[in-house]
């Protein structure tokens, strides 16, 4: 066999993308690791110095950090979990035949394409305690007597922002799962019909097993995305009242905007490690496939 001649072309072709990504992703990650071991507060630039694990020690004794960590888990579990449930439902509906299906499918994706700031603004107005439409609807239906200040009290604020992230994520799930549904061959369902399978049996025995891959990848992508999202919470509540809606990424962002870069880097590093644990099965999978 002739040994293949070394070809420089593929390397030249990936070089520009690789260079940019190295500059904007890999170097910053390394820089962030260094910063997490420093006192790096741009409000006190003369005091920047290496302080070992002090940032991490501060982090683990910071009650706000623990609250944010707990909130992140709730945010991701309920946010992504219910996005999945409703997204799945919408996909099943869109997979049926009806007039105008293409238009409905396209329109249903708009929340996904909407900027987070606008999402925060729209829902903040819907939830408004004095003139909000949600209070008006609930009162008209006789479910409440007094308007609720949804975003300003700790008992309702977090639930309200979670509803918003669910709203934002339903379309993405629906579209991904719909594509998976359309890839299942109809023969399987026909065979099941001949055997007299019920609707539920078909869903449980054919549909869900065939969608395993799609569901797995979509959930992973959404977990990473939702855990990292800042703009919706930041614009609805800013993390308040009394930290009840503050997730880790919002806390990191708030610390970074007041220029305490060392401390926020160490928390961001912690967040990345947590997500890496979640993402390892996904990466292993993609390496095998490609």
């Amino acid at each position, binding site marked *: 066999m002739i040994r293949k001649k070394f*070809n420089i072309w*593929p390397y030249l*072709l990936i070089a520009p993308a690789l260079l940019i990504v190295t500059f904007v992703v890999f170097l910053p990650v390394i820089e962030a690791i260094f910063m997490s071991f420093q006192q790096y507060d741009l409000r006190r630039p003369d005091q920047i110095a290496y302080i070992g694990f002090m940032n991490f020690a501060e982090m683990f004794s910071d009650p706000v950090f623990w609250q944010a960590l707990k909130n992140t888990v709730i945010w991701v579990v309920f946010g992504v979990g219910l996005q999945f449930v409703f997204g799945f439902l919408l996909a099943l*509906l869109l997979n049926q035949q*009806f007039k105008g299906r293409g238009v409905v499918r396209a329109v*249903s994706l708009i929340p996904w394409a909407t900027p987070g700031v606008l999402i925060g603004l729209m*829902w903040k*107005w819907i939830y408004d305690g004095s003139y909000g439409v949600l209070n008006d609807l609930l009162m008209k239906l006789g479910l409440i007597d007094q308007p609720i200040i949804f975003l300003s009290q700790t008992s309702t604020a977090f639930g309200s922002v979670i509803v918003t992230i669910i709203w934002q994520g339903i379309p993405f799930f629906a579209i991904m799962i719909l594509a998976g549904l359309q890839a299942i061959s109809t023969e399987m369902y026909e065979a099941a019909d001949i055997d007299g399978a019920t609707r539920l049996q078909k869903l449980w025995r054919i549909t869900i097993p065939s969608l395993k891959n799609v569901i797995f990848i979509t959930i992973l992508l959404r977990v990473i995305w939702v855990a990292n999202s800042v703009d919706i919470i930041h614009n609805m509540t800013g993390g308040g009242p009394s930290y009840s809606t503050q997730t880790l990424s919002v806390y990191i962002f708030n610390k970074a905007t007041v220029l305490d870069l060392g401390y926020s880097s160490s928390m961001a590093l912690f967040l990345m490690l947590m997500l890496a644990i979640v993402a390892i099965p996904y990466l292993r999978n993609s390496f095998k496939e490609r």
Partner: protein
Amino acid sequence: MVKQKSLLQKTLLLYLPLVAIMLFLLFPFYWTFITSIKPESELYGSVVTYWPENITFTAYQKLFGEFNFLLPMFNSFSVATITTIVTLTVSTLAAYAFTRFEFLGKKIFMGLFLTNNMFPNVLLLIPLFAIMRSLNLLYTPISLVIAYATFTIPFSVWMLTGYLKDLPSSLEEAAMIDGANRAKAFVKVILPVLMPSIIATGVYIFIQSWNEYTFAVLFTNEETRTIPVTLKNLIGQLGVQWDLLTAGGIITIIPVCIIFFFAQRKLIEGMTAGSVKG
């Protein structure tokens, strides 16, 4: 034999739940729009109206007149356009290499692009802020273009690799046998066929850059502010002037909607291809 479903069955199992979900998904947009055309008296009255009794466009006039909404629109537009062009160029080249060549380290390089999606924005934000500051790029549009490459390049490489895989290599091989070199074959044969996919990817990049908020807050100032940051500042400045805020929101979403509908079919195809096959 196909069983004909009764209308009642179809209503209960399809139309009713579909209408319920679509109402939930679309109502916020409806509410935002009618708020923006309500006169103030109706906004803060004791009765909530579900369609304005008097329609007014003063909020939009004020937004462009008093608040100079055109500047941030222009900023957002230029940042998103430059990001799209740069990202598409480098990503198409890389995706071509990944699908048409076998080379040492290919898997590792592909893995590098994939792992990119894992890094939290907030993690990159902090060192990038420090780097931009030391390069004197802070508060310039360039800093945003560079920052947006962190999430647009990995995603575009992934999407374009998927599209290119579906194009048989026999396409350009035939042209190369006819004497065209690889570059010429790419431009003459691949590019025209790939164009719809490139446009769809471009739409994705454009929307993401247009919407981005966390980097934009830290990397822009009065002059270079983009739309989402302006909207956020408006919330801070105006507090409860919801007619102006919602009008700003409607202006923000219109360009996104237009280009999204323009490319949605191809975009959905590209987004879902990787996960369905993989």
